[in-house]
């Protein structure tokens, strides 16, 4: 039986996203040479949320945000059932500062595939990783996020569920465990 434990409720969720935005502004100033790329399928919700919040904070309506599907770059597509989703990047990442965005950083394999997939759109000047939840004990690859919403210690059999207002009715992160 999976017992849910709330990691972020909707209030904390909002605070965390806002804090991540301020951290981004600290590094990227007005975002004139920076772009956001959300990893499909679940990273795009966070990417869109951050884009919206940054537009409010910077009073700049032109913050570029794309979505990237990594299915064809994965090393495990023969072991898992994967459905490709849309890639939509309407800008060139050549010489840009790219912020890759995903909801949960777990094994690091999605990010590895995302880095490869992004190279099809040019050679970025700089790539950073932003995640909402970092499951720091479960990494298979040497990948770390620069901006982290919340770090949690969880074991592989546990599941992190991120819910979004847009699709699930409320912003919430829960940890489901098997005991």
């Amino acid at each position, binding site marked *: 039986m999976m017992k849910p434990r709330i990691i972020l409720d909707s209030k904390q969720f909002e605070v965390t996203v806002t804090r991540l935005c301020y951290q981004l502004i600290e590094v990227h100033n007005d975002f004139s040479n920076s772009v956001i790329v959300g990893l499909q399928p679940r990273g795009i919700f966070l990417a869109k949320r951050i884009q919206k919040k940054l537009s409010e904070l910077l009073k700049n309506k032109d913050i570029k945000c794309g979505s990237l599907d990594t299915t064809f*770059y994965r090393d495990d597509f023969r072991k898992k059932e994967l459905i490709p989703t849309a*890639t939509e990047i309407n800008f060139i990442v050549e010489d840009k500062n790219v912020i890759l965005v995903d909801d949960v950083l777990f094994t690091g394999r999605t990010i590895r595939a995302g880095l490869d997939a992004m190279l099809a*759109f040019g050679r970025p000047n700089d790539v950073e990783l932003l995640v909402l939840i970092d499951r720091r004990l479960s990494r298979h690859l040497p990948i770390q996020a620069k901006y982290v919403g919340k770090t949690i210690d969880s074991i592989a059999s546990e599941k992190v569920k991120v819910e979004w207002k847009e699709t699930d009715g409320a912003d919430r992160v829960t940890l489901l465990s098997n005991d």
Partner: protein
Amino acid sequence: MTKLSTKHLLGIKDLTADDIQLILNTAESFKEVINRPIKKVPSLRDITIANLFFENSTRTKLSFELAEKRLSADVVNFASASSSVKKGETLIDTVNNILAMKVDMVVMRHPNPGAAVFLSKHIDAKIVNAGDGAHEHPTQALLDAFSIKEKLGSIKGKKIVIVGDVLHSRVALSNIFCLQKLGAEVMVCGPTTLMPKYISSLGVKVEHNLRKALEWCDVANMLRIQLERQDIKFFPSLREYTMLYGLNKSMLDSLSKKIVIMHPGPINRGVEITSDVADSDQSIILDQVENGVAVRMAVLFLLAGRA
């Protein structure tokens, strides 16, 4: 539904409607990939594919080869004209020899109907049928369905007429199966001599008057007259065929609605359709060719993903 129900692609007949939808949806993602500045993904970098063409082909062979290369597969090509087939080697021996060199997938075109099915029972590799005689040409039907969906938004409820040499056409049979599984209405149109005897048992309408057929349909798929397969005369002359079943611009313009024109290629310009029809804005012939690469990438990707 994220996996195909079959290990090989031998014909549309063996696919479920879900399989076809899965292939078309995956092809949409690949169409986006082949329009990128870098048109290549590494998905099949550990896979070797042999293209065995026992019959001439330009489009299908190039299209498969491009699809394979854009998925980063290793490709070996084989054309029967320059091979030991000429010395009398059997199909199974030829293929087993190629498989002994560790090939994972085989894309095969063969003049005999059922060659792909036969092969799938005797060898241990994934088979993609790229046309077997007058039987099936599944990837052509899939790319036709993809192109219709792209142009008209959906296939369900649409009316599609297949005009011409249905008797000798593998494209016709695969198209009939595919479109019917996706919920379209299909009609065949042509001279009685070029209609298979039991064609209506497949649930298609049969019409012998081209104008009536075109007035009925949303999409007309104009087949090529396959002179190389016609060992006897099926109609008095090409000129007479063109008069009765060739589509020209004045007939196209006189129809009460704008229909979509397709052709599987190669076109006999001036026989089944005139040049101004083939190059008109109602024709999606070149879109079909572009979509062919995306659809074949989807088929290879999904078959490779099946353990």
